[in-house]
């Protein structure tokens, strides 16, 4: 009579031990959810320190030599001779500034007014630019480090000459006098930034145009809206999220070229002089580039190149007047 009881007990024990081997496990689930929840790497806004200097002389560069060396005959020991030696000019450029320096998605080439200026400098060194230019597309924070580390010979990248940057690198004479201006939808009736008081106006996060807008009087000040790239502002305006974009006229010309339903209006809010940046230990190259620029501006090449790229999109600029300090 006791035996069935023992059997039952045994059965229960077997059941309990079998239960252990078929238990469910959360391991794969937890690993899956952890992997899927991996946070997206954040972008870090780029910010440069503000340094005070004499704004009147910040654009002054080194005086060019009286006569430029002939193409293919760079003075021995000069940086230009080094460039000629290695076979190509390595230029840091913008890949997203339409008409100045932008990636053509069709060809995979970077093209624009600034690229043509780079080609002219290469031509002055090698006699022809063909096969002697290596373009390096730079992100904003890469510009100065790439020059300092010698990864590029020159940066021609819608780069404003500022006091801070001059403490790090040398600049050529101004090659394009951009102005901070305002882009609005065509037919909006807005004639200047004061008409956009308390309205959202877009610029690159942390950029100088944002500071300029913030410094306006409270009565006329727009609401600055920061985007991580200037082109994001054009998206925002097309989507109706902002009523205007205030940034460099060069960038705005590129926007107008991509969206004919916009117009550049109002006076200059600030001068934005562009210079070609060069490692400060290559003074001979700064002088050489200034010589090339001066020649391009005098013989009409500069004007021709500008017209090639920008003729349909607004008033063409006259070549900037170079300032030299030496």
């Amino acid at each position, binding site marked *: 009579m006791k035996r*069935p009881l023992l059997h*039952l*007990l045994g*059965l*229960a024990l077997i*059941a*309990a031990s*079998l*239960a*252990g*081997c*078929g*238990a*469910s*496990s*959360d*391991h*794969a*689930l937890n*690993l*899956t*959810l952890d*992997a*899927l929840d*991996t*946070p*997206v*790497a*954040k*972008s*870090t*806004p*780029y910010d440069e320190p503000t340094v005070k200097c004499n704004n009147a002389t910040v654009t002054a560069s080194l005086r060019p030599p009286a006569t430029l060396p002939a193409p293919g005959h760079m003075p021995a020991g000069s940086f230009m001779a080094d460039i000629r030696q290695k076979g190509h000019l390595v230029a*840091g450029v913008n890949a*997203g500034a*339409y008409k100045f320096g*932008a*990636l053509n*998605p*069709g060809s*995979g*080439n*970077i093209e624009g007014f600034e690229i043509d200026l780079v080609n002219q400098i290469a031509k002055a060194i090698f006699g022809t630019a063909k096969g002697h230019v290596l*373009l*390096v*597309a730079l*992100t*904003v*924070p*890469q510009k100065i480090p790439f020059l300092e580390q010698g990864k*590029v010979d020159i940066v021609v990248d819608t780069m404003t000459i500022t006091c801070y940057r001059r403490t790090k690198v040398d600049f050529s004479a101004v090659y394009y006098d951009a102005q901070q201006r305002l882009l609005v939808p065509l037919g909006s009736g807005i004639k200047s930034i004061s008409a956009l008081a308390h309205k959202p106006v877009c610029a690159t996060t942390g950029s100088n145009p944002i500071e300029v807008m913030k410094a306006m009087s409270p009565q006329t000040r727009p609401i600055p809206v920061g985007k*991580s*790239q200037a*082109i*994001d502002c*054009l*998206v925002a305006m097309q989507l109706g999220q902002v009523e205007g974009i205030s940034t460099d006229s060069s960038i705005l010309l*590129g*926007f107008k070229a*991509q969206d004919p339903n916009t117009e550049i209006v109002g006076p200059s809010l600030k001068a934005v002089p562009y210079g070609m940046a060069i490692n400060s230990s290559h003074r001979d190259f700064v002088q050489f580039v200034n010589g090339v620029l001066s020649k391009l501006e005098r013989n009409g090449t500069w004007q021709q190149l500008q017209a090639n790229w920008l003729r349909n999109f607004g008033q063409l600029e006259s070549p900037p007047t170079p300032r030299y300090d030496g």
Partner: protein
Amino acid sequence: MWITDAAVSVEGAGIAAAPAPTRRGRGIAAGALGWVRDRLATTPGRLVLISILVVVGAVVFGAIALGAEQSRERAATAARLQTERLLVQAKNLYTALSDANATVATGLLSGGVETAANRNRYVNDLAHASVALSNLTQEAGTAGNAQAALRTIAGQLPTYSGLIETARANNRLGFPIGAAYLRQAALRMTSPSNPEGMLPAADQLYRVEAERLNDNYRTGTATSALVTFAAASAVALILLLLAQWYVARISRRILNVPMVVATVAVAGVSVWGIVGLVNAQNALSSAQRNGSDPVEVLSAATVLLSRAQGDLSLAIVSRGTDTADANDFDVVKRVFERPGGLLAEISALARRTGTTAAAQKFQTDYPAYQAKAQTVADREGSGDLKGAIGLAPQASAISERLSLDLAEQIDAAQGRFMRAAAHATSAFGGLGFAIPLITALAAVLALVGLRQRINEYR
């Protein structure tokens, strides 16, 4: 003495069942006690008490055993027919959205006009996402955050595809704003800061469905249910045996045929139940370990590979003020390659499921992808966009191979799940009817057997 114990437990039951001790209640309780005391005084009275005890015991412990069996059977059935299917829908939605995002970014790399294959892949992704979305909307039902996530995706998907078409149109014209629209669209997908992001919403849905399935596994393999079932069966059997022992003691007949049959029936259904529960548990556990575990891990790998491929392409087409895309590519790489990461888990699962041969292709393609992607990323990082764009198709071709291969492995794992889950539910076969039926039968037989003895005293 056994009989005293039984009497005491009946007395106890009488007290417990009594209503709150009001004056009247106390009267009823006292009356019941008196009735029991009267019955205890005579042998037929005791037999009547035992009859009541056996019937009540059969009903109570039969119900407990049935409840334990049913909790497992319901969970296994839900896993097989509902929750796993919804998890697959959530997976389809998640992978389709992330693949769409990577595909379109990679397509813009190939110049002004993307290939027909690339365009079709994007269109198919959106179609798959929409189908999964409507399936989930019909069934995901309950959880509030699941509903919010479904609304987010349903609301954002048209805007997303609109932005993508604007990106395409501008890209065809050679305008850099095309890449900006692409980034804007990608932000609607991924942005962690954007509570309306579609991928975070898809992640939310995936999590809800995966946890519901996991709950089914937990309930369907709960040791407590098996132990409860075994204990209830044992107690019911002991009651029957004790009743027979008493009957044998007071009469000269050792065997009471109806009661023996009742005991055998209860013992039979107990063994059947335990074997069924153990088999079902093993099958359900196999459905998880060989089926849905690999489905989950491999779909996470699919989603993350799309993310890496999207990062690689976006870094080239839309160069920002920093290297966030390139950094994110490395973040994803670490999730795969760290110790105990996805790669290690995929290998472990392949060994567990005996599919190492099928997994071999992935294990060789993955390092090839990383190597090619690294050369693309190096070109991009050094500013050689033309070089990066030239090499990018080689990386994206391997990426496509990887995701096709993962999809194949997921299908195979899904097949293993379906087979094992079908075994799990069929292992319960008929228990849900047999337990109440046989319990009732046993109670009736025991009553008949006891009635024979009681009648001997009339």
